């Protein structure tokens, strides 16, 4: 193909509740720091992609108000993807490769703090995203405040039963990620959370416990993507996007194999094929995965080929994915450690992976990281997600 695409600028806000800032201001902050990081000005931007979900924003056409913040005014385009942030990178990649623009800005913002926790706003949105004919009436029988956890528990149970994964192992994942987050300066309210704390936290829907579910957070993230020629002009540390993949499985819950993640497997296969990766367990140096629930990280180890089917428990038991291990996963703290900025979290995973490639991850740097994988998921109750492979070379 000849043409390559690199990330030349990263902008990521702190992960904390910001009641003093509007979502436009928060996104502007991330854009500002991404442009400064890339050494470009607003005029250099060719086009802009944002990702957001209308219902979560509480506003239809939720993209139109991000346009001003992201430097897209009177530019060739602003495209909203109703997807997780990781899809933004895939779309931005295609945009640069097919040449309407040389520099593409990909951004996403989430202000979870504007939703009313007490009124179960988020749970009601999950109900609204279910098929209205077959699935919604069934899920209506679950108290709405526990819907998300009930759906997650079904999946967790199916997976854990099939492969003999234990609750100790999912707890270990959460403990690892909370520990990693202590080293991440962007997590402003990171607390020491022990294995005991997690085990003793409230059971939301067996086997899911309160501290195995990521809390909500506000955050904005912006990446600047550029073609090879442009990238070389602006930076000596380009982070190359060598593989992208995304996939959607069935939308009907009853048709799914809840014990595996075929959509991530397919997305990963596409991304690995592009990147020329044959043995992900050996070749990938660091990964940032979508661990909204602790058991999800284990499932994704398998889908991403970090181990065989059913072997994820061994990886965490042997410490392979710890910060000092041979394939550290979520050294930033992941979504459990950082908090979940729904719709933006996938982009944040990629930003953290890009910092690793640049060697700029600070205290949670994986020494000598050259190939990193970032993965996103559409969130409960979707069955879709994307994978991006980043490389130093």
């Amino acid at each position, binding site marked *: *193909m*000849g*043409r390559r695409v690199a990330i030349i600028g990263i902008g990521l806000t702190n992960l904390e509740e910001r009641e003093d800032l*509007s979502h436009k201001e928060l996104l502007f902050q991330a854009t500002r720091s991404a442009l400064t990081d890339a050494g470009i000005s607003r005029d250099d931007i060719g*086009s802009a992609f944002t990702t957001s*979900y*209308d*219902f*979560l924003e*509480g*506003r*239809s*056409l939720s*993209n*139109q*108000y991000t*346009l*001003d913040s992201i430097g*897209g*005014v*009177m*530019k*060739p*385009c*602003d*495209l*909203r*993807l*109703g*997807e997780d942030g990781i*899809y933004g990178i895939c*779309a931005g*990649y*295609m*945009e640069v*490769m*097919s*040449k*309407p623009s040389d520099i593409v800005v990909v951004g996403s913002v989430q202000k979870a703090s504007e939703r009313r926790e007490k009124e179960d706003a988020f749970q009601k*949105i999950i109900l*609204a*995203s279910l*098929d*209205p*004919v077959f699935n919604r009436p069934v899920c209506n029988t679950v108290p709405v405040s526990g819907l998300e956890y009930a759906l997650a528990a079904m999946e967790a149970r199916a997976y854990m039963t099939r492969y003999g994964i234990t609750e100790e192992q999912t707890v270990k994942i959460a403990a690892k990620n909370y520990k990693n987050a202590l080293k991440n300066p962007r997590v402003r309210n990171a607390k020491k959370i022990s294995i005991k704390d997690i085990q003793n936290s409230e059971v939301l829907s067996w086997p899911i416990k309160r501290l195995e579910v990521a809390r909500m957070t506000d955050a904005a993230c912006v990446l600047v993507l550029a073609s090879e020629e442009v990238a070389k002009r602006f930076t000596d540390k380009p982070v190359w996007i060598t593989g*992208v993949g*995304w*996939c*959607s*499985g*069935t*939308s*009907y819950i009853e048709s799914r194999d809840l014990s595996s993640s*075929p959509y991530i497997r*397919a*997305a990963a296969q*596409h991304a690995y094929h592009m990147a020329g990766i044959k043995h992900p367990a050996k070749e990938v140096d660091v990964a940032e995965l979508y661990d909204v629930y602790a058991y999800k990280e284990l499932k994704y180890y398998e889908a991403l080929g970090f181990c065989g089917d059913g072997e994820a428990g061994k990886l965490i038991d042997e410490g392979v994915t710890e910060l000092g291990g041979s394939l550290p996963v979520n050294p930033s703290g992941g979504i459990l450690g950082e908090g979940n900025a729904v719709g933006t979290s996938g982009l944040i995973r990629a930003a953290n992976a890009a910092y690793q490639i640049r060697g700029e991850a600070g205290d949670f740097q994986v020494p000598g990281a050259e190939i990193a994988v970032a993965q996103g998921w*559409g969130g409960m109750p*979707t069955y*879709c997600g994307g994978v991006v492979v980043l490389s130093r070379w």
Partner: protein
Amino acid sequence: MSRKVAIVGVGMQKFARRKEETLNEMIFEVTKDALDNAGLTRDAINAVVLGNAVDAFCGIHNSAKLAVEGCGGLMKPMMMNSTSGSTAVSLPILGYTHVASGLYDVVMVIAYEKMSENLSPQAVFNTVYDEVYIKPMGLNVPLQCGLEARRYLYKYGLTEVQMAKVSVKNRGNALSNPYAQMPMKITVGDVLNSPYISWPVKLLDTSPVTDGARAIIFASEDVAREITDDPIWVRGVGRGANSCYFIGRRLDDLGRLDYAYLAAKQAYDMAGIKNPRAEIDYAELYDPFTYKEMQHCEAFGLCEEGGAGRMIDEGISLKEGKLPVNASGGLQGEGNPIAAGMSRLCWCYKMIKREAGACQVPKEVNTAIANGWGGMYQYSAAMIIGRD
């Protein structure tokens, strides 16, 4: 390097209230039609791009995810895009980049909207406004279009009669369109006597609420040449976007669609078209309101700036005119399922292929342009397709 991309098939269905159908059923119909039109099977599709304008119309969060089965996208890459009304063309542009980037060879693009599921589409539309500055002012879609239309007519000395002529033309053209929801044989007097929605825009200057979907299949050069002797190429794509704040726009003139001029320039530059009036044979322009077609004729260079009134007066944009616009009936005649305004691009394809049946324009069509418009009166997207 960017690859050449062709359109190899389109899928259509009648625009109508489809309350009895699920999203999947509605989308399945156009998917099947497009596959048949292209002579392909579901297995040939590598990736799917889905889009609608506003999820709240059908009351399903993330509604594209529920159409995976109907669009043939099961266990395939599927991406959802929305720029409100301009999704009509920004969506096929995303489909185009899927192929042009070299990532996929055959991509199915489906635009859909299910507006009959709610009690009032206007109430849904009111959820788009900024809660700090705009909502308190009480602005809504009709008021906003009244403001814009008024400024446009005043700036260029155009009249409500000229707007009415566009309505008569498009609703009349729709009489030959089997997919049209509301074809009508009316007179300029009928339009002028219809009640004002928001001065100067009258009921018959607007387009009807409806349900429906459209599908387009894009293919790489190699694949396209394999399946057809007459591939229709994507020759140019363009997009433009302006600030969502009326009050904050730089040039601050509602009468002139700066962002659409920007989209036009990008698309024409890419297609190597210097004189659109001579080189474009046919246009399908986004006409949710009559004056919008006039504004778009100007922005896309089909007449000089301010010349849209003369264009309709002289009959240039009539079906048998020199440069026909919306011979299918446009959104006015065919119905306006916001994002499924991608129908405009489908009709361009059918006109070039001479598959447009009773809607076919007499002149030969080799190059055509379609556009979409939307957001807070802020987005425009255009695609030029044609033979080499």
